[in-house]
């Protein structure tokens, strides 16, 4: 077998291990979905009318159509937070040193965890969209746009997962990993996820216009509800690629450093 197929085989074994963990200990996955769903209910049911009225026409007839793509971005953020905690917890168990003494593909432990997180986050995304549909979300996307949106969501998830895997490896305790991973989980608040960046003021507006979650949200929103995308797509893909690469290199270096 080639080195690559051995790596794929070991990664598949590690993925099975990760899936078993998730099935046996599902609380982290469930709580990762709870926060976006609560936010969805809160912003649609409680603040929705006020926000729509205050912001005027840019939001269109229904605030839920504006919000749902943003909540989807948030789902990826909160799922990545769970990943950081999972990785940190796992790295401090005795099985990891055992893996290090075995002649297996070095990256397979992390690849298995990233793939497992990707699958869980995609499922969470589907569930959050389902709740949004129940709350009146009416996307205008055709099949191609849906596939493109799923691809965008997968790119975002991959990027955030590698980044938070690195956080999980960096942190000494699961609580520390959790705090670090709150950064990507909460950055969508300062993006166009809840209100358009153009309606913010001063420095906050500048930040929201330049941070990665704004083009990502705008791209998903455009694909799902037909709002203009413009240069957001290329920016979103570039941000995701950059974060993925950085997170991957960082995580590999931290893992190989040992300890």
């Amino acid at each position: 077998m080639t080195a690559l197929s051995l790596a794929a085989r070991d990664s598949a074994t590690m993925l099975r291990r990760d899936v078993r963990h998730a099935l046996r200990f599902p609380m982290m996955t469930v709580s990762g979905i709870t926060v976006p769903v609560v936010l969805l209910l809160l912003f649609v049911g409680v603040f929705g009318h006020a926000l729509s009225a205050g912001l005027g026409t840019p939001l269109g007839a229904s605030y839920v159509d504006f919000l749902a793509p943003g909540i989807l971005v948030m789902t990826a953020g909160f799922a990545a937070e769970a990943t950081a905690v999972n990785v940190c917890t796992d790295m401090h168990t005795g099985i990891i040193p055992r893996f290090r003494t075995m002649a297996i593909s070095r990256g397979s432990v992390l690849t298995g965890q990233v793939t497992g997180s990707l699958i869980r986050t995609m499922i969470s995304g589907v569930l959050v969209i389902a709740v949004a549909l129940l709350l009146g979300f009416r996307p205008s996307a055709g099949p191609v746009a849906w596939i493109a949106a799923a691809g965008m969501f997968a790119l975002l998830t991959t990027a955030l997962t590698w980044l938070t895997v690195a956080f999980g490896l960096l942190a000494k305790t699961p609580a520390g990993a959790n705090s670090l991973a709150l950064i990507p989980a909460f950055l969508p608040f300062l993006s166009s996820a809840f209100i358009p960046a153009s309606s913010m003021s001063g420095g906050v507006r500048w930040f929201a216009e330049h941070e990665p979650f704004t083009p990502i949200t705008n791209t998903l929103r455009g694909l799902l509800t037909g709002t203009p995308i413009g240069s957001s797509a290329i920016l979103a893909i570039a941000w995701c690629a950059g974060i993925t690469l950085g997170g991957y290199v960082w995580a590999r270096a931290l893992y190989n450093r040992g300890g």
Partner: protein
Amino acid sequence: MQNLTVDPASTATRSAVAVRSLRKSFGRQLVLDGIDLDVAEGTVFALLGPNGSGKTTTIGILATLLAADGGTVRVAGHDLATEPDLVRAAIGVTGQFSAVDELLTGQENLILMADLHHLGRAEGRRRAAGLLERFELTGAAGKMAATYSGGMRRRLDLAMTLVGDPRIIFLDEPTTGLDPRSRRTMWEIVRELVARGVTILLTTQDLDEADELADRIGVLDHGRMVADGTAAELKRQIPGGCIDLRFTDAAALDSAAALLDGASRDEAGLILQVPYDGRARSLKDLLDRLDRLAVPEPALSVHTPDLDDVFFALTGQPRTEQDGPR
């Protein structure tokens, strides 16, 4: 990577593990100060030493978990620094802290190992079932490892190490914290493995255990190998133990004390303490001489030297718990 200067006859066939001038520091603390050791193929080598003497650090380096600061290490004929993956393919490691996946069942843990050794589904299941049986874990095979007792966990840990059929096994304090029965079981497993030709390097704080299992014993103290030899060779360097004879009356004690030179008396306990070198011959002589005395038979207990005696003899200092990483 190929190292053309290696003579395969001298490395691959004789020493399973060959360590020269191994050095390691953590920050400013020197943990291994140039140790040498050789483990012949198919034998058991015990590294004996108190906490902090460098045992676990040594195992960590040999198991490719830690990088050495200096020295050379060859495991199964492969250079540790340049061919770590070939070393990993030859070894099995059971550390001091349980290296099992607590969220998986015993059987799932073993199958995970089989998958990582690319054994194939049927062979993996067969080997897992065989090991569960051999380690008396069949009943608990479907339970999560988190629910296992200390002894069961240690057995599962070792069973996982054996899935890949390693030729060289490192055991870091395999019986620390086990009850006497589990300890016996672990000893039997080690003997079985050696009978199959496996090479074992183990660490222990217990002289009895080293004596019981090892062909050679290396005594580690503050990161230096203070002695290295067979159990018999080491014991010759140690002042030896003693035999306590407990008499029922003072008259018997007096007559025995007159007969046995060098014995010390404990009047209150009616005990006579006789130096003893550990040989059967000396014990027989002592019993013969006691027989010739017309006194009621004393109760006899033998005290063999323990780690404290070894350390006192070899280092000239009483053993102290040493600071630093294990």
